[in-house]
């Protein structure tokens, strides 16, 4: 059977796309509410933690590069454990769909289509998500590359439009809330890269040079995302100030509205959102893919395609439940989502690494994953 291989660049692009959208969309506002203008430091600390967990994820799979977390679990402790791992990842991505929808729906609805019903946004995004998932991982990986290109354009536009209002004094004093609180706040960003480490846990076996460069690629992905996002954190802090950023759920939109090029182009946030939407829809698409893959493993199906429609229905209902009420959405985003994401993101790779150390010999005897 010919197995599709994701190129190294595509893998990095997938990581960046998955982290970027929520991290610039809503996370900076969350961070500003906790630590003010030190958001960029919290993002940086979060990035370092992301590097560690990405490396642990790689270590767990290093000796068996043809396996993902689910098949690794199967090889070590049998099918029941594989189903459990699949269920945990399913729950992770189901929970992740909440913040993704908060980011996507509120960006478009509140700033561009205030009268449109929420269900419209959810249905439209799930339709293209399902389409991409139906086309398969190859297409998902390819569109990530396009999304990365658009992210670079977007960053270019925001830098060009914001630098004239850049005021370094807004970023001072540094570490106003102290290092421990800043480090604690970084957990909000951890919940963003958690999606990327879980992505790696599922698609590492499809990456072209996973055996040789697996760790390097994952880390480059996290670092690239971190650096791209830090630009927004610094701009939001320096242009808007920490206090103003904290007032907004979607602080990036405030920054985008503030940006202008010359006198003629006073408002171009729609161009930025058009560029941003590729990455946002990529997130939706990957959620559909990940949940459908996990569901198909739970039900021992050979292909994830039969599960696309069922998981879309589940994701759609869950997404609607989260974003329907603005206050509940914020509570979910800031309180519940990190409590679901972080134990899984930190715990699952560590657990599988420990099990791999315990069952190393058994793994060697196991048949290669199909």
């Amino acid at each position: 059977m010919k197995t599709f291989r994701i190129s190294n660049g595509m893998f990095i692009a997938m990581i960046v796309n998955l982290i970027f959208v929520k991290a610039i969309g809503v996370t900076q506002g969350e961070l500003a509410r906790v630590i003010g203008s030190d958001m960029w430091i919290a993002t940086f600390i979060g990035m370092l933690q992301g590097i560690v967990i990405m490396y642990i994820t790689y270590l767990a799979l290093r000796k068996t590069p043809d396996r993902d977390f689910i098949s690794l679990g199967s090889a070590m402790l049998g099918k029941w454990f594989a189903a459990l791992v699949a269920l945990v990842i399913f729950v992770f991505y189901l929970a992740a769909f909440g913040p993704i929808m908060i980011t996507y729906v509120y960006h478009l609805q509140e700033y561009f289509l205030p009268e449109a019903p929420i269900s419209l946004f959810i249905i439209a995004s799930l339709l293209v998500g399902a389409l991409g998932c139906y086309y398969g991982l190859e297409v998902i990986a390819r569109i990530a590359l396009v999304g990365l290109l658009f992210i670079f354009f977007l960053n270019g536009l925001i830098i060009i439009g914001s630098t004239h209002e850049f005021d370094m004094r807004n970023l001072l004093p540094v570490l106003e809330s102290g290092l421990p609180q800043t480090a604690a706040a970084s957990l909000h960003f951890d919940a963003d890269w958690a999606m990327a480490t879980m992505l790696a846990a599922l698609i590492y076996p499809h990456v072209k040079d996973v055996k040789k460069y697996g760790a390097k690629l994952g880390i480059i992905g996290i670092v690239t995302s971190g650096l791209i996002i830090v630009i927004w954190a610094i701009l939001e802090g320096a242009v808007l100030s920490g206090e103003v950023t904290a007032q907004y759920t979607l602080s990036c939109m405030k920054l985008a509205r503030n940006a202008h090029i010359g006198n003629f182009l006073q408002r171009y946030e729609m161009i930025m959102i058009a560029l941003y939407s590729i990455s946002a829809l990529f997130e939706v698409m990957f959620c559909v893919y990940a949940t459908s893959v996990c569901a198909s493993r739970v039900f021992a199906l050979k292909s994830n395609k039969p599960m696309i429609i069922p998981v879309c229905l589940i994701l759609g209902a869950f997404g609607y439940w989260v974003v329907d009420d603005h206050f509940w959405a914020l509570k979910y985003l800031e309180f519940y989502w990190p409590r679901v994401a972080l134990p899984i993101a930190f715990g699952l790779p560590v657990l599988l690494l420990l099990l791999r150390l315990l069952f190393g010999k058994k793994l060697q005897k196991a048949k290669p994953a199909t």
Partner: protein
Amino acid sequence: MSSIQELLKGAFKPSVKENAAVLDQILGNSADVQKRDFLLCGKAGSPGLLCFMDGLADTTLVEAIVRALVVTGSQLNREPAELATAESIRTSLLFNATVKDCPNVREGINGILSGDTLVVVEGLDQALLVSTRGWKDRGVEEPSSENNVRGPRDGFMESIRTNTAHVRRRIKDPMLRFESMVIGTRSQTDVNIAYISDLVKEGLVDEVKSRLNRIKIDSVMESGYIEELIEDAPLSMFNTVQSTERPDKVASALLEGRVAIFIDNTPVVLIVPTFFWQYIQAPDDYYNRYWVGTFFRIVRYFAFLISLMLPSVYVMLVSFHHEMIPTSLALTIASGREVVPFPVLLEALIMELAFELMREAGLRMPKPIGQAVSIVGSLIIGQAAVQAGLVSPFMVIIVAITGISSFAIPSYSSSLAIRMFRFPLMIASGFLGLLGFSTMFFALLLHALSIRSFGESYLAPASPYRPTDQRDTMLRLPMWMLDERPGFAQDVDRMGDNQMPATPLQKGE
């Protein structure tokens, strides 16, 4: 019908009368079937028969056959007994360039229907098939749909052999191969597969042959028939098979390791695999200096984006997001729309459809009338519609720019696809604003990313990203930098090292 199939399976018999009866039964009394009897070497005991199609066969060549069989044979004092086999007649009597033995009836009939002349002689159990193809062709002309300013002006025509010769003249490489096959149970259309055997992508020729062999159809009237039966994405609006009337394009494709498919009776040749970006490239890009080539290529990329998205963006902005339009521009648009009774989407759809209507009418009409239709349509009706307050002047400008941009795309068939994609994008934007636009654009992008052309990703080398091939995608770098063929070719090196020209140093420098 079944008896004719039986006759076709049979072999020629030694009796001229029996063979003539078989030919009569199969070909019937068609007015264009010509039979000419003769006496081999002028001897009464050896009658023979020529059969050919009037209009397809060159009568001068047919006369030469008769002269050789009757006059030359007797002048050389040959006896029919000495010419007892088809081979002996072929080697010692006939002086036509292409003659072959023809043992079975099907081959003979196919030959006659293709313009060859069938020769049967009393006592021979084989016939002879002499190539006498010669019908009236139009001359070599400049391709009407692929114009260029600099470069060769010759285009393909309806004769497959003339078309292959056009390419052979450009590539005098012994490794250039033309493989022949026939498609169409009734049309028996000649199809040639062209490739350079030491350059072509490995496995591609076999793949092309297997797809062509799979075709079971009664007739092939044009290359479009073949295109639709071999393409990778039959449900897609994108063309995954390139078509061209230009021999230089085919030659350059073959030199890149691709395969060309020539079909008889059409001036359009198919090229596979193909990539989306090739439709935006023109031969002039390579014939002009690279600065000019790159500049106009970028202009065409803009034209592509405008053609695809401008009406949708306009509809989206004016319907939903007017706050995004710079104030002075928004006021201008609003003043123009003040008297228009239609919503923007409807106005755009009406104008786009009117434009397509004018284009189609102009195309189908005789040329002088077609021009008149275009002028009347675009100038008079457009002006009248604006004055009547049915459409806004800004919408006329948008539709006109979009139309002109779509004409700037060198591949006509591809520009048609882009024109069609415009409508779903526009409708989605008109109903859902930015949400509709981004969702539809994303779906379109997903679809384009998912399709392939003979194993190659349609959007390569952009996705998957191939750094080396970027030298000739968005930009056209200098010829001395285009030193490699696409990665799928067997031999990627196309140029020696250090080809960048430089002024030679003067003595003493």
